[in-house]
């Protein structure tokens, strides 16, 4: 048995699919990327994630993608903004089940340590038909990938760093021809006592950050089992617990404390035929949040049947459904929410160089069938030679977001009459790949989006209440480029990324619309990497442009530029035991910066990592 993941290294805009070879027959169960023609997708594989093993998903997205991450401090709440949309406009999946809290409608990226996952994929733009609820700005897909026939493996990883950082991780993996079992445990701790300049005090003295300690631990259990000739069972469980002091904004001396605990489980059964496969996915997500002693708990159950088939040449289809049963026991209310979705996808490949996909989804919630969501995309390789190709990608899609439980039921203020937020987006991308002495991959994408009925919580006297008031038009450009070459014994790699995001709020003043708060127009990522055998050195930077802290002509925050560097050696051995090491310096030039207004961020940070592979 062989399980192969085809992926597009680096920028990842090629389709990816799980391919299982059972006996003499090779069958495949296409995953969502298969039907995402015309949409921009970025994929990060395990090798790239290794450099972030002691860090969070928030750091990865900020430093390696066009996504802007709104961080309330080091290790504090971090939420993604895809193409100028809000955190609630990003769907987040783990092994195919949605993770966003039904009460908050978003996830905290700081509570998603890279240690817990094997693969991260980012999909950009509205994609309600393919992803369902909340995929307005984009979606994040986290996966744990099984491997087979590796025997017994064990890894231990320890990172120590500035400000009392101490991260530990252990994994044990056993795999045979038909069975793969993996257990992972991690604990991440940081006292977060970094020095910062307190702008709220006369003389702006340097102080040590207080009340920002973070402790997080978790357990991930994966099982993959090939039964007989044509059946595959996968099951995963992820427990994550975090105990955080909430870093106060400068000028405040709050001593808030937050505990988060999440249980996530997915059971996945697939049966393969010659030209089709049926999959049944059962999921459970339970989130507990305790803020200053006040408990909030939500749970979600998912039932997701899906059938993929390709009975006719050049055509592939997927039909499926998702039933969601959500329940919230919040501090001010209790509520249930049931949703039903059906979806169909079709992929047509009339030629090797051309593929078109059509996706349709119908949602039912609160006893109403709404909304209907289509999407259409095309990938066309219009120029192809042996070592070079040019591809055009284009898509149009609708997206939506059902109001969260808090939006509808919070007491006081919840608004049961809210409408779903809706979006319409389109994009056009050009991709150039060239092989030779210099290997080159470049992409340029133009996007345009309209978001309507955007929900904002507004003060209604002493009570805050959500309203469908905001209208936004977004457009922009995203560029990603990667260049690699070899020079003698050295392998070099350069990566560049730039995004221009115009997200105009038509609500405040439609005649003179202003950029949405905390949405930088410009953002760049740069990286240089050199490898000499098993020794690698990297140097990377992230520049985030000016952003306002409110609507209208609100105060503007200065751009910031953060540089990181690291050196690693992967070939250190003692007998059969490998112990790769890595040393990195974050914020190399000790920049004094804030991502959000008056939220201090740490200066120069040193981290040393030692792993032991048995």
């Amino acid at each position, binding site marked *: 048995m062989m399980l192969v993941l085809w992926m597009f290294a680096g920028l990842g805009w090629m389709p990816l699919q799980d391919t299982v070879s059972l006996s003499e027959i090779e069958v495949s169960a296409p995953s969502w990327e298969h039907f995402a023609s015309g949409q921009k997708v970025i994929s990060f594989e395990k090798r790239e994630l290794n450099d972030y093993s002691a860090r969070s998903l928030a750091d990865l997205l900020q430093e390696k993608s066009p996504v802007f991450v709104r961080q309330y401090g080091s290790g504090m709440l971090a939420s993604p903004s895809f193409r100028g949309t809000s955190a609630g406009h990003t769907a987040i999946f783990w092994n195919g089940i949605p993770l966003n809290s039904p009460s908050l409608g978003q996830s905290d990226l700081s509570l998603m340590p890279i240690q817990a996952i094997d693969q991260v994929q980012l999909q950009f733009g509205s994609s309600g038909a393919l992803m369902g609820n909340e995929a307005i700005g984009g979606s994040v897909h986290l996966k744990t990938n099984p491997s087979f026939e590796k025997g017994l493996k064990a890894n231990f990883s320890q990172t120590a760093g500035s400000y009392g950082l101490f991260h530990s991780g252990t994994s044990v993996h056993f795999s045979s021809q038909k069975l793969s079992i993996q257990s992972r445990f991690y604990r991440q701790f940081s006292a977060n006592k970094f020095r910062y300049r307190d702008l709220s005090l006369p003389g702006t003295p340097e102080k040590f950050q207080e009340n920002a300690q973070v402790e997080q631990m978790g357990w991930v259990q994966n099982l993959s089992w090939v039964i007989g000739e044509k059946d595959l069972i996968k099951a995963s469980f992820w427990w994550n617990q975090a105990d955080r002091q909430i870093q106060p904004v400068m000028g405040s001396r709050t001593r808030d404390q937050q505990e988060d605990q999440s249980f996530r489980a997915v059971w996945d059964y697939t049966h393969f035929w010659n030209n089709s496969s049926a999959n049944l996915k059962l999921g459970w997500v339970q989130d507990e949040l305790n803020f200053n002693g006040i408990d909030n708990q939500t749970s979600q159950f998912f039932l997701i049947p899906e059938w993929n088939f390709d009975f006719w040449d050049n055509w592939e289809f997927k039909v499926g459904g998702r039933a969601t049963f959500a329940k919230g026991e919040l501090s001010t209310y209790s509520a249930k929410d049931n949703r039903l979705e059906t979806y169909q996808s079709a992929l047509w490949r009339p030629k090797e160089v051309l593929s078109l996909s059509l996706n349709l989804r119908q949602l039912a919630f609160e006893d109403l069938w709404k909304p209907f969501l289509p999407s259409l995309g095309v990938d066309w390789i219009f120029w192809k030679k042996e070592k070079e190709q040019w591809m055009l990608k284009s898509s149009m899609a609708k997206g939506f977001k059902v109001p969260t439980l808090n939006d509808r039921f919070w007491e006081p203020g919840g608004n049961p009459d809210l409408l779903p937020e809706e979006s319409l987006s389109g994009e056009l991308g050009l991709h150039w790949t060239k092989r030779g002495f210099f290997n080159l991959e470049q992409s340029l994408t133009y996007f345009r989006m309209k978001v309507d009925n955007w929900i904002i919580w507004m003060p209604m006297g002493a009570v805050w209440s959500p309203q469908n008031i905001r209208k936004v038009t977004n457009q922009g450009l995203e560029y990603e480029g990667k260049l690699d070459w070899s020079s003698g014994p050295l392998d070099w790699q350069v990566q560049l990324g730039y995004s221009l995001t115009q997200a105009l709020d038509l609500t405040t003043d439609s005649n003179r619309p202003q950029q949405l708060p905390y949405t930088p127009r410009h953002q760049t990522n740069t990286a240089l990497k050199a490898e000499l055998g098993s020794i690698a050195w990297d140097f990377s930077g992230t520049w985030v442009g000016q952003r306002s802290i409110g609507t*209208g002509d609100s105060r503007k925050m200065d751009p910031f530029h953060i540089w990181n560097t690291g050196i690693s050696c992967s070939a250190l051995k003692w007998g059969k035991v490998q112990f790769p090491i890595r040393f990195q310096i974050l914020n190399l030039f000790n920049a004094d910066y804030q991502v959000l*207004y008056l939220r201090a961020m740490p200066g120069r940070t040193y981290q040393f990592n030692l792993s032991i592979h048995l």
Partner: protein
Amino acid sequence: MKYIFKNQLWALVLVLFAFSCQDGSEKPLGKYETGVLILNEGNFGTNDGEVYHYNPSLRALTGEVFEFENSRPFAGLLEDLVLEEGRLYLVANTGKIEIVNPDNFKSIGAVTGNLDQPRSLATASGKLFVSDYGPYDANYQTPDSYVAVISGLDGGAVKTKIEVSDKPEDLFVSGKNVFVACASGKVEVIDADSETLIKTISIPGKPTQFLEYGGKLWVYSYQSTQVSFHAIDLGSLQAGEVKSRALPKATSRIALGDGGQVYVVTSSGWPNYEDAVAMISLENEQINAAWKKGTGFYGIGYDRERQEVYLANAKGFQGNGEVVIYQKDGTQLLSMEVGRGPSGFLFR
């Protein structure tokens, strides 16, 4: 004491200063010595409170005055502006008081420690008296409210805390007596010299602000269906005459106009959220419950010199707020975008 009498006090200081100039030399006016200071509270969790300056003669607005003059953000939620003893006190309910030169806004001192949720400030006997809600308890109540005493007028450490009734707001000083309006239904009197509580006066409703009118001190109090003004005898420290008016949904936001007219912001609150400015008279029974109607009203002020009403709108705290200026007859003169959460004015 909120804005209403401090400008008069300042005018007195100016008059005294003018008469004290024996040589006839003229001092150039400071940048912020005249005009209107607009208090922008800021957004909870963002601490972006600030002061804007408006010059009515030139119709010129200057934003973020504190940061511009001091090269650092105010970094707090601005609750009150108090002009006393030649100093301008910026009271932040996030736990600090910044003290600036009122003419040029340059920092001259601060109180940065041992405060919780300051609401207002007054000077007496060469000391600062700061009303403070105190810390929240586990149920988000504030049972440990106090008035903090700071020995110097230029700030420094909190010397002592005098326990008072829940939710102390406005302060008024008469001689060595410091009157504290507590929204829990009390006016308390502190002896500024001994720094002790000497008297507690019960007032129905939520007494929040002092007014001086007709040669008397009044405390404004509001309830669900009416507002009332209670005269406080400065000698006997007793509550006396009461003027009550039927006015539902009144808030603590008021401004004293000419001839005993009081402008009161009302709000229906959740869920309809209909705001209005009511105009009531202290001289007679006249009430205009809807002199102005709208949503988002968050502060009000009256410019005696120009006889204009300034009405602040927080615009949902999503970004900058708005100030609309009306003539006394209700005619709108202009509107302008100001900082986040505009909530009050200091007319100079």
